[in-house]
């Protein structure tokens, strides 16, 4: 009979863990940063080493060469660059100035 109990306990725990993940995703952005802060907030110092910036902001998960070739592979590279910029603004932790520098770096090829 312990097995029925174990199954119930495991299911309850899984439910609690899903709830914990959702709570984390909500709490981690609270108090919410205004959406415009990334672009209109205090800008950083001029980007001197964009390669290091890429490594810091993106390089842990993405290969520069891979992203660069995806920019060149499309029939409309400027549109792809705009997409990537929008994506960086949404996804990354870089400021607007940094995002532009990263996209330009990728366009030129690392």
């Amino acid at each position, binding site marked *: 009979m312990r097995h029925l109990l*174990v*199954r119930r306990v495991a299911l309850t725990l899984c439910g609690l863990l899903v709830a914990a*993940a959702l709570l*984390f995703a909500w709490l981690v952005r609270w108090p919410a940063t205004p959406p415009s802060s990334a672009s209109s907030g205090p800008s950083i110092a001029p980007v001197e080493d964009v390669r290091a910036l890429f490594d810091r902001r993106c390089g842990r998960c993405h290969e520069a060469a891979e992203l660069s070739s995806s920019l060149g592979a499309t029939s409309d590279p400027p549109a792809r660059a705009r997409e990537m910029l929008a994506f960086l603004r949404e996804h990354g932790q870089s400021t607007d100035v940094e995002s532009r520098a990263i996209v330009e770096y990728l366009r030129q090829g690392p």
Partner: protein
Amino acid sequence: MSLLFRGIVWFGLYTVLVVLPLAVALVVHPLSGQRPVAVDLAAAAGFIAFALIVLEFALVSRLRAASDPFGTDALMYFHRLMGLAAVAFLVAHPVLFAGHGLSAASFNPMAGGWNRSSGALAFWLVLLLVASSVWRKRLRLGYDRWRRVHAAAALIIVAAAIAHMLQAGTYTQVPLLAGLLLLYGVLFLALMFRYRVVRPLQLWSRPWRVVENRDEGADTRTLVLHGAERARFEFEPGQFAWLITGGTPFSAQQHPLSIGSSAEKAGEGTIEFSIKALGDWSGTVPSLLGPGARLWIDGPYGAFSPDREPAQGFVLIAGGIGITPMRSMLLTMRDREDVRPVLLFFAAANWQRVMFRSELAALEREINLKTVYVFAAAPDDWEGERGFITRDVLARHLPRQYKRYQYFVCGPPPMMDSLETTLTEMGVPAARVQSERFDMV
């Protein structure tokens, strides 16, 4: 400290350890700016999957203090369920990232930097490990080989997961969280070291020797073992131990078996295990263990024991080799001169598949025992119960006060599933029904 309280403490500790990395990530909160919710959910799923994976080993590392309140088979079952939960969280981790810049190449452990390939390696190894566990028999993977592969894969998974999180994770750039993850790695290694090195070394100087290898019929052999004084241990009737063959206590040939002898004889240094030829090891090794053969016993474990709860009487329900722990209970009752009533239901195909027949007949004269045989393939002249142990069969034999008895069920999983439901429907309180399952993998 009561078993219930200890159980609550251990489960509480487990829960805290599962959510601790997530809680610390929330506190250190190194990010600023807007991010899609899916990215934070992906990070959360990754932290939970990691903690679950590391703690999987703790559940099955034979920590007696932790397994005592629950029973080892219950912990094994919990290990299996939480393993599947870990897979769900693990798969959610890259899936949630997929819409936010994670390319298909990231799943290739041979491509990209070590930061990504370590994550991919851990991901695929976890899936492989779970698949080989769930479908071990279908894949015809021997138990001993599977144990070795399972342990090696677990070690690589934890190392690769930590490497991935430290290098690819944004949260883990904070030293506190990175340190915590490393601490989980150290905990895993410490448990592995205790399980693989310390425990076998402790057993090394406590060998047991086979004094008799008896054929019980029905493809079953009983090993009678004798241990020197320092090897002996007390046990409760119904408990089990890991029998280690293969020449050293470091051997992968470690099998959980119910102790079949009387708990009252433990002090004399003799212990018995009955083994039915059901698999690769049980079908070959036991018959080769002649008198003088050296082996080791890691035990006792398990909570399947009449010693733990007060009872007015007992109902023992055994299917096939599931009679072994019941035999220990009955022999112990005889040696303790316990006069409480015992009703034993013994399911088998026919008389030829019944082991310990004469011993059970003798016990019926020595203690307050009544045995009901239920044969699935009974001969035409059989006048007893036929088929399976159903509600009708139980109702015909149970005493009027049956709801106050303790129930012990051990046999094939479908039989136990069916009986647990039947007994509940008959009004037996769930807390009075104990079952023991050895289909651990």
